[in-house]
């Protein structure tokens, strides 16, 4: 009994703190309106209080609770501490469905907004969980699929919005949810939807707790596993869909809520589910209140979804060392299918494809009026002078990202490591942001700051790794949190209307538009030198994945070789991020594709990844420049769009 009490005490304390903080903030928000003397007729202050401020506070409580409940349910049923509507792509799926329908079938939205959101999030959940099931619900592949899908949906909705309303374009990937209210309609509708789902949860909470006994144990106790899982997933998907349909994507509450509950001491599933709901409600309540207080009149325009990510991700980073390590990832293995492909054939094919893509990039374009043209005659030199920097910069960045991915995967023994997933690209973007806002920009200055940012993130990873032996979940979570935070910071900055934020947004989306001849030359030279260094380090990269003992046995300077290679990866990431932004996913795709093509040893894998990564980026740049010409779509976004489904197919194949 005492144990039980202790389990509940911690979370209760957290909830109390959050609620007290929230109430103080709400008091600060509402006090002026409450104390003002009531005038007859249309009293602006009291109208705003009753129909905007108070509904907004209620919506924050409800949406926070719903998202955290959804996250807790996902985590319990998938037995995955990283699952939540954001990391599984469920919110992003709902959002994409709403964007697509509002652009192409606006008539459907009036009555069926929730239905549309439900379809979107159900489809996303089906894809992610379906792929996850093939891989035995490995937590990492599940979250990887989810994040990739999240990015894909976010990127696609950004492009669609951009193409249709250029004046209102905003390129958010993770969160653009706004809690601003103008009536009680949304909170009231959320209440009854949540009530229905809460009742279902109350019914299934006991059998759900039995899942902790393991599959055979719970089946023995009479739990109908498949049906139970179905019901719980449906509840969680429903919650995420309703919230997204009402207020947009609010990032990471569903991850932070249950994590906090567990850290505060909640142990049994029922405790985690109940307490994380309350903590989630309190969290969003406090976050949104703080935002309104801090931003004043601007508060209605700052997307709360982005702000929760700013609040949520550092919290997550701070809590990471305390998170219990429950899962281990398999080491990268030499794959038996390697014999399927001849190494030389793979390299030759990759080179041939790259050459074709380069030819396309250099010589094919669209003229005035939109017709496809092959470069020739009159404007040959002028147009080539415009195009070639973009193509060359794309080639260099893609190759560097892919090689950085190879290095990182070999160093960490984590097959999902890549500059993007580990947050190194995000660090580089942070560096660029600081350079832009604090110092005068210029290519070399930005490069130095980007390298600084990337190296800082790498250093943090290294320091953390010393204690946790590269526990992949910790590194992965930190990376996700960082990327989300960068996007959120940029999002918030851009909604303040600062012109420098527009430049930063351009970077985030990976546009090669501003690349000029000098930049491209510098990029390709940096790429050549760094890839050469990586090739020279092939022996280290072959031996290090075998583990510290064999590496030391063959006389490898363990610490210094690791340090050097991490530094190399950081430098490559920073240089590449400058032109293609942090979201391209080429650093993840390149190495995977190379390995899939049978290039398993370091030397061929680096060469293959460089060819494939470069090719992907050149293709992305070509598509981005031509598909909507004369309007440009950023190459980084396109490559995420091309790459994500590709990667998911790949993951599904290796069941």
């Amino acid at each position, binding site marked *: 009994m005492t144990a039980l009490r202790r389990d509940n005490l911690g979370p209760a304390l957290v909830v109390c703190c959050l609620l007290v903080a929230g109430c103080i903030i709400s008091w600060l928000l509402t006090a002026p309106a409450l104390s003002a003397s009531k005038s007859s007729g249309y009293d602006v202050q009291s109208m705003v209080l009753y129909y905007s401020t108070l509904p907004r506070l209620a919506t924050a409580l409800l949406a926070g609770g719903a998202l955290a409940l959804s996250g807790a349910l996902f985590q319990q049923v998938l037995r995955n501490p990283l699952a939540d509507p954001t990391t599984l792509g469920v919110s992003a799926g709902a959002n994409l469905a709403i964007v697509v329908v509002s652009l192409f079938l606006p008539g459907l939205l009036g009555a069926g907004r929730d239905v549309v959101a439900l379809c979107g999030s159900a489809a996303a959940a089906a894809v992610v969980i379906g792929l996850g099931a093939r891989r035995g619900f490995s937590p990492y592949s599940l979250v990887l699929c989810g994040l990739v899908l999240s990015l894909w949906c976010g990127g696609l909705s950004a492009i669609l919005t951009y193409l249709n309303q*250029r004046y209102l374009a905003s390129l958010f990937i993770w969160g653009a949810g706004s809690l601003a209210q103008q009536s009680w*309609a949304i909170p009231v509708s959320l209440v009854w939807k949540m009530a229905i789902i809460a009742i279902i949860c109350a019914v299934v909470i006991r059998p759900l707790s039995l899942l902790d006994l393991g599959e055979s144990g719970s089946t023995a106790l009479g739990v109908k596993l498949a049906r139970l899982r179905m019901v719980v997933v449906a509840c969680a998907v429903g919650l995420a869909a309703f919230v997204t349909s009402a207020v947009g994507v609010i990032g990471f509450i569903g991850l932070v809520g249950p994590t906090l509950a567990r850290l505060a001491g909640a142990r049994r599933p029922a405790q985690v589910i109940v307490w994380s709901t309350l903590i989630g409600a309190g969290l969003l309540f406090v976050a949104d209140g703080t935002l309104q207080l801090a931003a004043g009149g601007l508060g209605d325009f700052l997307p709360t979804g982005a702000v929760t990510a700013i609040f949520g991700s550092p919290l997550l980073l701070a809590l990471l060392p305390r998170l219990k390590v429950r899962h281990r990832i398999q080491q990268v293995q030499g794959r038996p299918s390697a014999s399927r492909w001849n190494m030389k054939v793979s390299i030759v094919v990759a080179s041939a494809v790259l050459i074709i893509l380069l030819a396309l990039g250099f010589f094919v374009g669209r003229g005035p009026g*939109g017709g496809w043209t092959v470069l020739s005659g009159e404007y040959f030199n002028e147009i080539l002078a415009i195009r070639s920097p973009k193509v060359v910069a794309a080639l260099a960045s893609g190759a560097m990202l892919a090689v950085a991915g190879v290095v990182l995967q070999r160093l960490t023994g984590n097959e999902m490591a890549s500059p993007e997933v580990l947050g190194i690209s995000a660090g580089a973007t942070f560096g660029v942001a600081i350079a832009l806002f604090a110092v005068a920009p210029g290519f070399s200055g930005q490069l130095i700051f980007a390298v600084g940012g990337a190296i800082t993130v790498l250093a943090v990873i290294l320091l953390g790794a010393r204690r946790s032996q590269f526990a992949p979940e910790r590194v992965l979570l930190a990376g996700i949190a960082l990327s989300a935070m960068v996007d959120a910071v940029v999002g918030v900055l851009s909604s303040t209307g600062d012109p420098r934020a527009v430049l930063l947004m351009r970077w985030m989306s990976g546009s090669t538009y501003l690349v000029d001849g000098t930049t491209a030359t510098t990029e390709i030279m940096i790429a050549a030198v760094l890839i050469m260094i990586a090739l020279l380090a092939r022996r280290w990269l072959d031996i290090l994945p075998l583990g510290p003992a064999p590496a030391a046995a063959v006389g490898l300077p363990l610490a210094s070789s690791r340090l050097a290679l991490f530094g190399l990866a950081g430098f490559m990431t920073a240089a590449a991020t400058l032109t293609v932004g942090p979201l391209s996913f080429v650093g993840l795709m390149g190495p995977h594709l190379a390995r899939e093509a049978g290039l398993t040893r370091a030397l061929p894998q680096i060469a293959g990844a460089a060819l494939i990564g470069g090719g992907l980026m050149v293709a992305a740049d070509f598509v981005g420049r031509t598909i909507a010409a004369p309007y440009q779509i950023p190459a980084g976004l396109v490559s995420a769009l091309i790459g994500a489904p590709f990667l998911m197919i790949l993951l599904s194949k290796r069941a």
Partner: protein
Amino acid sequence: MRAISRRSLLCSAAAAATLMPIPLLAEVAGQRIVSLDYGLASTLLSLDLTPVGISDLADWGKWVVEPAVPASVSDIGSAYEVDFEVLIQLKPDVILTTPYLDELLPKLRPIAKVLRFEIFTPDSGPILPSVMAATRKLGSELGRDREAERFLARADEFFETCRTRLTARNTPPVALVTFMDARHARIYSAPGLFHNALERIGVKNAWTRQSNYWGFETIGMEELSAITDPAARLIAFDPVPPDVLPKLAESPLWQRLPFSRPGHLTIAPPALMFGMVNEAMRFAGLVTDILEKDA
């Protein structure tokens, strides 16, 4: 009879061209002009100059609408990310731009002569006189002074017609907005183009507070309650975001405003606030039509 070969035709055409009376600026007639601004582009059309390229042409129908753009005009992409490949192939002689695109200047200058027009600047004052001055400047830079004067006279005549159409009636004051979402709107007032045009046709702007130098201010919906005249009308310009009207219908903040009474809100077709004389004329015409219909 000997068939006229293409070459001989071209020769005689060239000969004829040299014999023709030379205008003040000889090269003007054949000038290929690209505009990176909607207002300047529509002014060009009114000066009988058809530009070869306009930025953001794909959205012309969404924001500018009138005058119609001939099919021969090419889209050169977003003004902020001009497609230079298309721009070069259009062989422009003159590129019209605004201070907002100054970061493109170093890339534009090698391609063609750049004419930069400052209309919306912090110290430009009332916009309508300033766009009229810009129209004259554009006319003189391109050797179309007479056309510019004629166009301005035409505009003046049009505003005068609107004014006389409305003087007979007792027109209510109007507030002009664009809805941003169900909670916020941009409201237009002095010194903006819409406010000036409203004054010109003798209609009172119900929103009396000064705004920023572009002529708009972002307000919460509830602030519309500051307009106390019960007769006042609200005109909202398209595009209205898709879910705004249904959300307003269930919002007490809106429901209790006098404007929510039937007949007090009109959704008007799009009109561009960042425009020039043509856009002011279109705006004046739309408002006159609306007020005439209800009065």
